């Protein structure tokens, strides 16, 4: 028979035990000291599946205190099912406040988007990362990619970008455009759209990247130069959404979601749910907008 005393009566504050939190904290500090470099860490198991945000949770739970205001978004939306789940877990474990309002948040955990609204020095953005190794697509083996980073040997990824251009006329197809951090390490910004990448450079907030399954943390401190990889004559460009307006607010100049109606016709809506809510009720919050070069 299972008696009650076999089960722990309470859970650690912020779920993770203090010993493990110290290890995560030490590694996070080292990540800040070496911008763009992936620091290996213990990555303890969580009650949430690998690949579903354990790395983001490790960072958030090692940071959070009862005075924090936490926002969680997935693909730009606070109300997405996985965001709801993570937010409820963090709130229950840390006894902190939660919000949908980007400006109110002190800690933001996000999957695959940077909020449209500019973040300040009072804020930390934690991004969930499925594959932290930016070179994994060109080199399967961890031992080799580690050596490539050590020697700043990024030839293979430059070749991939050039080949993409030759095939398609654009530098990349998809999210997660590789970035050069502080002029030394090439890193992944996580699978955010190119639209979001310019936010990372010379920012006021701290960016932390957590890959739980792969067990790596990397960081971009504030006021750090971050350049998307591009050629002198083939430049980095963000998504254009030409001729597109949000069907709810009538606005443009934000990353858009495409929605299909029952009759298969297409409408567009601003992806960042809190940004959209703010546009509906007040002035446009400050953004860092990027103009595509010719």
């Amino acid at each position, binding site marked *: *028979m*299972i008696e009650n005393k*076999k089960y*722990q009566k309470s859970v650690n504050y912020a779920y993770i*035990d203090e010993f493990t939190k110290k290890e995560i904290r030490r590694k996070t500090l080292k990540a800040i000291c070496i911008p763009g470099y992936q620091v290996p*860490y*213990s990555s*303890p*198991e*969580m*009650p949430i*599946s*690998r*690949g*579903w945000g*354990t790395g983001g949770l490790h960072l958030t739970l090692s940071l959070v205190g009862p005075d924090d205001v936490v926002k969680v978004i*997935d693909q*730009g*939306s606070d*109300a*997405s*099912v*996985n*965001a709801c789940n993570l937010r409820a877990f963090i709130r229950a474990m840390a006894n902190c406040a939660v919000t949908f309002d980007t400006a109110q948040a002190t800690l933001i955990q996000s*999957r*695959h*988007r940077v909020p449209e609204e500019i973040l300040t020095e009072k804020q930390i953005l934690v991004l969930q990362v*499925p594959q932290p190794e930016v070179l994994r697509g060109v080199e399967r083996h*961890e*031992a080799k990619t*580690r050596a490539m980073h050590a020697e700043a040997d990024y030839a293979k990824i430059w070749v991939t970008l050039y080949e993409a251009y030759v095939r*398609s*006329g*654009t530098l*990349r*197809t*998809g*999210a*997660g455009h590789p970035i050069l951090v502080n002029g030394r390490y090439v890193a992944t910004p996580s*699978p*955010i*759209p*190119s*639209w979001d990448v310019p936010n990372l450079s010379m920012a006021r907030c701290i960016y932390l990247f957590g890959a739980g*399954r792969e*067990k*790596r943390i990397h960081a971009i401190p504030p006021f750090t130069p971050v350049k998307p990889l591009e050629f002198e004559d083939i430049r980095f*460009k963000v*998504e254009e*959404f030409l001729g597109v307006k949000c069907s*709810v607010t009538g606005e443009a100049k934000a*990353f*858009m*979601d*495409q929605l299909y*109606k*029952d009759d298969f016709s297409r*409408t567009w*809506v601003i*992806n960042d749910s809190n940004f959209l809510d703010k546009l509906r009720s007040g002035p446009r919050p400050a953004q860092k907008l990027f103009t595509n070069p010719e």
Partner: protein
Amino acid sequence: MGYVAVKGGQDAIEFANKLVDYFRWKGRTRPIELEQARTQMRLAVDRAMGEGALYAPELAALALLQVEGDSFEAAFHLRAYRATLERRYEAELIDTREMFVYRRISSTFRDIPGGQILGPTRDYSFRLLNPALVSQTLGSIEKFLDEIRNEIDPAKLHEVRTYKKVVDIFLKEGLMATGARPGEDRRVFDVTREAIKFPVPRSAVLQMLARSETGALMCMAYSTMRGFGESHGTVGELRVGEVPVRVKDKRGRIRCIGRIRVSEAEMVGGSGRGRRAGADANRNGKQAAQPRYSIGYGLCFGHNETKAICMGMVESALRSPNPDNPANNQEFVLYHTEVIESYGFTNHLKLPHYVTFQAGLENGRREVRVKEEQAKREAVGAGAQGAGND
């Protein structure tokens, strides 16, 4: 339709959880008792403990019941629980020569010191479905247990003893390749405390294989038998039984804290792979003709022979790195047999990916635009040329 407020995510989760319970209970069958699961689904419990990396039969039984028998989810629950526990002690080294053996066989020799003990195994049964199982009653079970008890000869019980290892034969005859390779990392590593870096030390390889998903490990081992690896070894010894676990208390005294059931396989590898055998021979000053065997080692929680055997085969394969064979590639094996990571990541595809997809779509559209503009420019250029030639 227009814009639909994407609220109600929280409600959706609550209803999803209710529906899971509904699907469990709508048949209105009697709840399964924990002890029933623990004793009558013994092998599922043992597998969950091994993959969950936590020796706790009752909790493993609870996990299996809670997740309706899904082996991935059961292991997941145990791992998550394990991660919350305090680490108070490190066990003293366990010597499986102390094992109270249920089962012990060797394929390498026909007969071995102490004898072959078949023990509880289905290996030689017929895989026929047996409906009689459902008509067992507590009464018929008691009768069956009484029959077994009556077959035990109390006079022979004192003969039950621990068994020496088959591997001792190799050691005694000087047939074992012994000693670490130069520069081999002999540290005891804990993968739950430190992220692995390649090449991984042997202790970390063994730890990860002991926690690996049984099916994935089986896939790796099987591949070595079908040409994606060097020839497989034989079962030097397979043991299943209970071993005592001891720790050192604060005053330095060694205390026994209980017994755990484990499966252990010592796979005898091919005799000396050319250079290494020769090198070993030269080092020991013996004639080069003496064959040397190496052991691929497998050990896991509970009664899980497949895992122990496959672990021994794969551990052996990993000691000869070869990028052409998946099973000879440390990164391939260790990353892809890790049950929680592979389960999580393959299933994570169910999460929304529409922004990533959208970004790709936009790029694709730009690609088309660029090509159209290029084609237009070329057409104009050709037209202008044509005009010039007139």
